[in-house]
């Protein structure tokens, strides 16, 4: 594991009205899990991609330990950094084993050592080597693919791992288990991790330290608890506070926010929730299906309707009819 140091790093893209990254100085200790958090367009991904030189800074310098990254050949630098992206990017024509072997092969590892490493990593991500070694990416679920993506990034034992919204294309349930798995892995293998996300809950759950970005600048760089309890400004407060309402929703029941239906009727084919489900689940169902309302079911009968307005009303403490 290695430390990463940003010194007054800026990045201007041609034609953009303002810099994507604007004078960022940040010190990431060796073995630390740092999450870059912010709304889209805040420069978090740009900042990340400057570490493996997919983007070159317009100004400033980046060090890994005490080496300025431009002193290394770019391919050598990248082979020493694990890289996990949102779209996973496994090579579809290679098996799981071949995918994991890419960087070790480029670094000239012996065949035996590569084979042993593949099995070790598959065991680490809890995929049975005998069963999964020879599979192709298309034969894996989304969650399994991203775990293989993670194993591939760890293959040559890099000191630094960069992760660019690695779980955002994965369904909510798998995402939660992947987060737990990542934390378990981090306890085991200890890497310096830079992790980009726009998901506040994910950031709070994973980070040793949170760097909150806005318009290319780091507005706060603190442990999660600190960010929650002592936000640096209104922007940070709003960013992490908006999540409070959502968290609050998981404590409220559908029955308190629905509009009752007299008499009861059969289901009408639209999305349904149970009367005793929590509102957070109901909200995510509404947003996911795009339906105007959910039918509330109890014992096979429709007993009410639930709309976004109803959920909003309940969250504010009153039910709107």
């Amino acid at each position, binding site marked *: 594991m290695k430390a990463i140091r940003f010194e007054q790093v800026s990045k201007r893209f041609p034609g953009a009205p303002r810099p994507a990254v604007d004078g960022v100085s940040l010190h990431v200790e060796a073995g630390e899990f740092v999450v870059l958090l912010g709304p889209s367009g805040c420069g978090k991904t740009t900042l990340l991609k400057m570490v493996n030189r997919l983007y070159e800074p317009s100004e400033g310098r980046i060090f890994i330990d005490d080496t300025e990254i431009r002193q290394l050949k770019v391919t050598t630098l990248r082979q020493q950094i694990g890289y996990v992206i949102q*779209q996973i990017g496994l*090579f*579809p*024509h290679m098996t799981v084993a071949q995918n994991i072997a890419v*960087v070790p092969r480029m670094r000239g590892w012996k065949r035996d050592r590569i084979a042993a490493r593949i099995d070790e990593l598959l065991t680490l991500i809890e995929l049975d080597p005998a069963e999964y070694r020879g599979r192709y990416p*298309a*034969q894996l679920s989304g969650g399994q693919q991203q775990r293989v*993506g993670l194993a591939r990034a760890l293959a040559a034992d890099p000191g630094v791992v960069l992760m660019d919204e690695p779980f955002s294309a994965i369904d909510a349930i798998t995402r939660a288990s992947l987060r737990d798995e990542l934390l378990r892995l981090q306890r085991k293998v200890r890497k310096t991790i830079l992790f980009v996300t726009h998901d506040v809950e994910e950031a709070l759950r994973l980070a040793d330290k949170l760097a909150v970005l806005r318009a290319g600048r780091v507005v706060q760089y603190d442990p999660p608890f600190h960010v929650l309890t002592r936000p640096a400004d209104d922007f940070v407060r709003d960013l992490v506070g908006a999540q409070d309402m959502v968290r609050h929703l998981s404590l409220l029941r559908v029955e308190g926010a629905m509009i009752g239906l007299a008499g009861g009727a059969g289901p009408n084919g639209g999305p349904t929730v149970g009367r005793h489900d929590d509102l957070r689940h109901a909200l995510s169902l509404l947003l996911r299906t795009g339906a105007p309302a959910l039918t509330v079911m109890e014992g096979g009968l429709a007993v009410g309707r639930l709309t976004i307005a109803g959920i909003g009303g309940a969250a504010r403490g009153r039910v709107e009819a």
Partner: protein
Amino acid sequence: MNDLVRAFAYAAARQGELVEALQRHLLLVAVALGIGILVCVPLGIVTSRSRVAAVTFINSFNALRVIPSLAILFLALPYFGPSQTSATIALTILALPPILINTDTAFRKIDPAIREAALGMGMPQREILRRIEFPLALPIIITGIRTAAVEVIASATLAAFIGAGGLGIYITRGFALYDTAILLVGAIPVALLAIVAELGMGSLQHALQPPRS
């Protein structure tokens, strides 16, 4: 049925000529396809990376194809005479567009995330092309070659019109003598060749396709 029997007898009586015509036909096809592949696969990689090159080359190759092959044959005659060269030029022009278009499409269709992953892992550009992009593009390129092959096999019969030989000689002869049996001696092997090319390339493409599930 009677024609088929007579065609078989006609062919059996001229085995030497038939074999030579077949060889000539295959040579015409192979050279045209070979040139098509050597030109269009590299060119397709270039056009997939540049909009200007794509518009220029794909459109001009397509425009060339609009000219009937027979017309090209006769246009080439004054320069190259009634030779294999003239026939090869006409056939190559037919082979170019499907190979170019499919190579271009194949490389464009590669998910940018795959390139980004390869680049981010520190793979050199040359190796990304060789180990990642080319194998992924190959099945679609082969589909293009298959289309070209079937077209060229059929069109190579036209070579006989300018005396460049091939299985077309039986078709022109059959026309001239108004004898369907002789015509079939050319037409049946051409049809069989086209089917073999279609099936062979199809299974090759299938074998090279990364598994989907």
